[in-house]
């Protein structure tokens, strides 16, 4: 046995370390599961609000078509379509477009055009009155979550310990890319007092994340 092997034999995984590692891994997995559940509940709530809104509008349109002359004052008031604020449930207010979201949120928000997948659907909302969120779904299940905070607080929702972190300057703004193994799925920065984050469902090459950040910043 060489001296190097003799040296290395001294490094051993003790029972104490093993238990510590296992409990940390379990705790981290649990935290991830909880945040996934919260994300699922938020999405379900958003869907429920949309469905409720759609049903209400359809119902009202239907009742007007059925017998417009017989509508009483009470029915008319019931039939008034709820505004976005009226349908605010679980802190999620949905909007129909980026322009509508921009107007209500008070910050310019444009659709991202440089996503690395073909967009199947997009949804726009203001969450808990603290940040605007645009969710894109791709044809093959890809996802992108674009958030803009009311202030500079980190609202990315991703607080894991990343193994790859890199800062890049774009037009004088420091953009931080985070991910694993030299690939990235999260880009975040602060601009004009707002926190911005773009999070993809898969880790990507830095160039892809850079292109998205550049498009938004420009």
């Amino acid at each position, binding site marked *: 046995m060489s001296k190097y092997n003799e040296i290395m034999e001294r490094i051993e995984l003790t029972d104490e370390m093993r238990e510590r590692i296992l409990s940390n891994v*379990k705790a981290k997995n649990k935290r991830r599961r909880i945040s996934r559940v919260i994300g699922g509940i938020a999405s379900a709530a958003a869907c429920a609000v949309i469905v409720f809104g759609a049903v209400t509008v359809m119902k009202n349109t239907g009742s007007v078509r059925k017998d417009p002359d017989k509508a009483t004052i009470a029915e008319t008031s019931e039939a008034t379509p709820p505004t976005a604020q009226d349908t605010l449930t679980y802190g999620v207010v949905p909007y129909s477009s980026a322009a509508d979201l921009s107007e209500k949120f008070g910050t310019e928000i444009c659709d991202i055009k440089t996503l690395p997948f073909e967009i199947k659907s997009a949804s726009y909302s203001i969450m808990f009155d603290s940040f605007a969120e645009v969710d894109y779904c791709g044809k093959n299940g890809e996802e992108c979550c674009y958030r803009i905070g009311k202030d500079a607080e980190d609202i990315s929702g991703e607080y894991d310990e990343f193994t790859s972190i890199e800062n890049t300057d774009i037009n004088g703004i420091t953009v931080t890319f985070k991910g694993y193994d030299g690939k990235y799925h999260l880009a975040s920065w602060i601009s004009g007092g707002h926190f911005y984050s773009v999070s993809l469902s898969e880790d990507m090459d830095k160039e892809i994340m850079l292109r998205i950040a550049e498009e938004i910043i420009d």
Partner: protein
Amino acid sequence: MELALRNNSFGRIRQICLAVYTFAVQIFGRERAETKDDAADRYLREIMDKHGNRLLRLAYSYLHNMQDSEEILQDVLMKLMDKAPVFESEEHEKAWLLRVTANLSKNRIEYNKLRDTDELKDELVAEERQNLSFVWEAVKELPENYREVIHLFYEEGYQTDEIADILGESGANIRTRLKRARAKLKEILKEEYDFCEQV
């Protein structure tokens, strides 16, 4: 009247069935989740039994610190749970784990401030094992890309082509680095040099 009564009974039966179904889903759903957690726990323990020491040693060869190395091992297990790769063989599993450990360790060197304590060095000094301490210091002085080749060759017993596969580089490149690392160690260690010269 009779029809209304029948409808009412049917509604009740349906409600009872639904309640039983919901209860069963809750019970079995919970049991399944617990079994899944238990299986994950067993799998991680098994991985640590088989590879824990080698992964910790590889991480230590990069980071020279036990706490950082322990965190790397933890991250490797997290990665294993996230990716859930399908391994074709034990060898494939071992190589995958070593590759992830190497990558995570290198990332940590690049992006994080490492802790200063080198427990291994302290231990060797405390035990007055000057010869081992001398060898360890010499290996530590090597550049990171020389150290990884030395470790995988001498500690893990991999051939240069296998190291190339793990590190994603060419075999020729690995052989050159191994040769240079040995020359450097020979120069520092002189008579203490005991690294076998076979390729």
